[in-house]
């Protein structure tokens, strides 16, 4: 009965022997973009809402019996003994999992170039990066190798590659989706979310993965979602309260109706963007205004400090989280690098050798900077101030949402860089995240959708007669980001669907 879904799963129960770390295995279409690290079908085991969907899963999300490398040599051979909650839910919904996708090592990067297994190329912009860190997931969807994918977003890692590859990517409100089984990078910032060709399909996946999980104590029950807009607190005790999924589902929220919606444009984030990005963004905002939305300019005083605050917090959490990789429970053996099983030196020296061998340069950079920012004499200067900034950013967003329903900005301030163009300048790479990280600091939901008349947009198909003069990078993808109130995923999906 599942025969039409098994083309990638030739081995039935022995499917785990069919692993193909490189490309094009198992009778599937060729992976010419290095989107996958493991191509392996998990035959669907149930019928459900995703029975017709082939879903790719980022390689930092645990899959029982299937390698989960985090794009790192440290975990090159790691095989989790359990499934992440989101994977359990995908399987239960009938999805066919087609493989594990390439990513920046441990999620640390915005181009998928820090992967220990080579960069992912952009299917919609040849020679350019797919974005990151969930670059393999976005590229797999853009290339049609998967119908949807899961990514994780710590500071933009779903929205960035979605924007660069011309697909839709949603970072949920902190606490909407379980992180159980996600290999941690910066726990207080990250969420798992969907990447898909359309807003509606992203909503279909979110419908399946969202919801409380007693294995992740930071997930919130729907009754706590406290949307300020609809359903008052007095209904919060009833079974259907909380407004988690208005009209029954997130997919159903993709109505394309923006009549009467007030959209605040984050002027500071538009000003810093490339001309080609600004052009595509403004055309999209104009399209929304034409469809009945009200547009307002919004300025957040705190936003200039968001990027520095984000990196201090993310690196600090990373330095602690990645302490577990010491070559004892997993990873390369402390003895492997020199072939001596009883080499001299204490265990700290053995750990340091394993971590030198197992971590790539960007991971080392962040672990060291995080260690530095948390060390005696610097904790107050960096980490405490970053937490102050985080609170400030949260309050600025809350104030803005008193006047507008949704906030908008370009997802990325730049067009996709060429492979190799930026990787040698870490600070310049970090600056690419300016528009995405404020959302993670504020725990809010945000979605990236292709701008009108850019690759991946449905409007792109009928734009042939458009006047392209003066649009130098007209053929490169540009993403528009919509940010919502906490747990108002339905609101941002509705507005985003007006563009796709």
């Amino acid at each position, binding site marked *: 009965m599942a025969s039409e879904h098994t083309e990638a799963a030739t081995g039935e129960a022995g499917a785990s022997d069919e692993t193909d770390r490189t490309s094009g295995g198992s009778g599937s279409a060729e992976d010419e973009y290095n989107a996958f690290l493991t191509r392996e079908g998990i035959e669907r085991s149930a019928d459900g809402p995703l029975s017709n969907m082939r879903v790719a899963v980022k390689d930092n999300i645990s899959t029982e019996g299937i390698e989960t490398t985090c794009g790192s040599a440290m975990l090159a051979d790691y095989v989790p*003994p359990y499934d992440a909650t989101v994977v359990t839910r995908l399987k239960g919904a009938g999805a066919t999992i087609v493989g594990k996708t390439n990513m920046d090592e441990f999620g640390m990067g915005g181009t998928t170039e820090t992967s220990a297994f080579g960069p992912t190329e952009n299917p919609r912009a040849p020679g350019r990066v797919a974005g990151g860190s969930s670059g393999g997931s976005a590229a797999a969807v853009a290339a049609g190798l998967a119908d949807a994918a899961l990514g994780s977003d710590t500071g933009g890692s779903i929205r960035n590659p979605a924007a660069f590859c011309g697909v839709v990517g949603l970072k949920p409100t902190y606490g909407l989706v379980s992180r159980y089984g996600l290999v941690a990078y910066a726990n207080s910032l990250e969420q798992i979310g969907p990447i898909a060709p359309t807003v509606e399909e992203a909503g279909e996946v979110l419908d399946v993965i969202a919801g409380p999980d007693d294995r992740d104590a930071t997930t919130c029950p729907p009754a706590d979602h406290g949307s300020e807009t609809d359903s008052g607190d007095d209904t919060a005790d009833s079974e259907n309260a909380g407004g988690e999924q208005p009209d029954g589902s997130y997919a159903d929220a993709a109505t394309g109706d923006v009549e009467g919606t007030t959209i605040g444009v984050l002027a500071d984030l538009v000003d810093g963007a490339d001309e080609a990005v600004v052009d595509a963004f403004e055309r999209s905002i104009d399209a929304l205004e034409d469809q009945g939305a009200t547009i307002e300019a919004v300025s957040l005083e705190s936003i200039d400090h968001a990027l520095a605050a984000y990196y201090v917090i993310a690196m600090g959490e990373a330095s602690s989280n990645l302490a577990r990789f010491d070559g004892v429970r997993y990873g390369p053996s402390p003895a492997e690098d020199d072939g001596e099983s*009883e080499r001299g030196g204490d265990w700290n020296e053995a750990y340091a050798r394993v*971590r*030198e061998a197992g971590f790539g340069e960007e991971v080392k950079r962040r672990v060291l900077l995080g260690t530095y920012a948390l060390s005696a004499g610097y904790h107050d200067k960096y980490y405490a101030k970053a937490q102050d900034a985080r609170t400030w950013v949260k309050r600025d967003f809350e104030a803005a949402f008193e006047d507008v329903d949704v906030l908008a900005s370009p997802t990325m301030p730049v067009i996709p860089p060429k492979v190799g163009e930026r990787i040698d300048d870490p600070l310049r790479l970090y600056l690419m995240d300016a528009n995405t990280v404020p959302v993670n600091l504020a725990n809010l939901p945000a979605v990236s959708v292709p701008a009108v008349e850019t690759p991946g947009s449905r409007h792109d198909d009928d734009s042939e007669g458009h006047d392209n003069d003066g649009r130098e990078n007209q053929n490169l993808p540009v993403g528009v980001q919509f940010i919502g109130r906490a747990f108002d995923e339905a609101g941002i999906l509705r507005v985003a669907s007006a563009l796709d």
Partner: protein
Amino acid sequence: MSDESTNDGATNEGTAADTTGEDVTAEDVTAEDVRHVAGLARVDLDDDEVDRFTEQFGAILEYFETLDDVPETDAEPDLVNVLRADETREGLRQAEALRNAPETEDGYFKGPRVS
């Protein structure tokens, strides 16, 4: 490693701040500082990495100093205890837990020598 790097205000032995003075500015990051932090983080670095990191950390930490302008805020964290019934439930079997370890012995993880 994190017991040293995430100390909660108590003084700690020999950090970069102690050796170079409290009002050090980011541009003053030295190779010695990088090696010291790498030691705290238990990551060996080769000489080229030390050189690159010394230069890059100066620029990155200088950028982080923009946080000096952030006003103090009174954070009111909306934290709640999340509890569950204290009931046993199925966990990993020993063989599953040991499966990824490079070395095991008699059902235990085998680590490097302590001294």
